[in-house]
């Protein structure tokens, strides 16, 4: 269980994942936040009102996936780095956007190893885009192109030296 392992279970994830139908329509945020902690920047950073207002600062966030536009502003505002954006509207690949705070920073077009929630390699991924705006305050957002099967498992990546 996540309190013993730090890894969300299938049951945990089932509570927060947008439907495949929604993911196929275009980008949408996935909030992998499972513990009531005093924290609400996801709510205050959302520009489209897709995060339900918090009654208590310890509440878990609730996202209206239909209202969410997948803009991804929340990704770098989440102190827990627990928000990802998934887009399965493309035919040949899914796009997963993940927060990234390490060096080296990959370049666009570079191939990297996509990692799952336990740091295991899931697949190769192509870096589609790297966002590093000042407003992100050093939490980069990296867009990964992965096979559709990896859309809901790839949550990190590792820059590998040329092999």
């Amino acid at each position: 269980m996540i309190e013993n392992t730090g890894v969300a279970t299938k049951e945990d994830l089932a509570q927060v994942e947008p439907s495949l139908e929604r993911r196929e329509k275009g980008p949408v945020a996935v909030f992998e936040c499972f513990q009531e902690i005093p924290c609400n920047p996801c709510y205050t950073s959302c520009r489209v009102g897709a995060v339900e207002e918090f009654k208590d600062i310890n509440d878990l966030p609730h996202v209206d996936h239909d209202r969410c536009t997948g803009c991804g502003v929340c990704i770098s505002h989440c102190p827990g780095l627990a928000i990802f954006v998934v887009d399965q509207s493309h035919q040949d690949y899914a796009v997963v956007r993940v927060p990234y705070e390490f060096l080296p920073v990959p370049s666009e077009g570079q191939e990297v190893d996509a990692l799952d929630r336990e740091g295991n390699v899931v697949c190769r991924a192509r870096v589609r885009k790297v966002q590093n705006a000042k407003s992100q305050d050093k939490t980069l957002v990296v867009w990964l192109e992965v096979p559709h099967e990896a859309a809901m498992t790839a949550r990190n990546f590792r820059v590998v030296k040329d092999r």
Partner: protein
Amino acid sequence: MISLRAYDAIVIGGGPAGLPAAIELASCGAKVAMIDREDRLGGQLTKQTHMFFGSQSQRAGTRGVDIAGILAKEALEKGVEVYLGATVLGYYDDRVIAVEKDERFIKMKATAYVVATGASEKMLAFPNNDLPGVYGAGAIQTLMNVHGVMPGKRALMVGAGNIGLIISYQLVQAGVEVAAIVEAAPRIGGYWVHASKVRRLGIPVLTSHTVTQVHGTDAVERVTVARVDDSWSPVPGTERDFDVDVVGLAVGLSPLTELLWQAGCAMRFVPALGGHVPVRNENLETSVDGLFVAGDVAGVEEASSAMLEGRLAGLAAALKLGRGSVTGVMKAMEEARLELESLRAGPVGDKIRKGLEALAREAMAS
């Protein structure tokens, strides 16, 4: 003859609790001195490179180190007189404190004090825990994030509370490999989002495990960990070795209360608050009239609540001094109290709420 420097209020400790206290006091027009033993203000905030939780009014989403800068600037702008590299040596009956700075002895006096001295890291007993390479996790953070020095090449962290988890993440950011995080309790004590962050990096978190000994001749070369049973004893036969040159200890904090004992504050032992803590009223005033406390010295918690406690203690001290508008100060105090209550209202605030209840009971009992 040593002259006496007099202030309305002296804040001891320039970290997340002390800074807001000094800012509130100075904003109310009090003549305030702030004393910190380090060469820069901010206390532990100066090492916190991660974004803070909480709400916007508590600067959620801002990195701790940036909060340190913001608060320090505000304190200086408000006219707080800051003594850096200065250590308070003692508190005496006539409200006089002795301070050492630049190898000189300074005597100071104030009508009100806010003690915000924080906490120190606990040690763990195991063979060879004095070998170079065994660090308090906070020391690793100071080396990396303040001085830009890598503590080693490969580390094992002991403790999966927020400090152990966050510093493991920062070790990887600095280019140090983390072999594992071991935690004696069966559950991860820190926020799960921090645990998930390190797990995504491939770092295992071994709950119900502890370090049994460290090996090496001149420095750490290897560490043995073992599973623990329900009574926290290592289970023979479950030992595993990791080749590491750094062992980080993040096994809890103890309030730094020496000055409070010397000042004669009524103290009680409350394990949930980290050890001996001062008895105080809802405005954080101790049993010594005009002596307030805020932050980890009053009970080990975290930085967002320390900032709110600092505000509350600073405001209450201003009220005591008769500074500022009474209605304005009282309103701001009420706001700080409500914000504190809401921060502590959830399941992760359970321990601190129980600790504060236990302290209140203990204080009533005698």
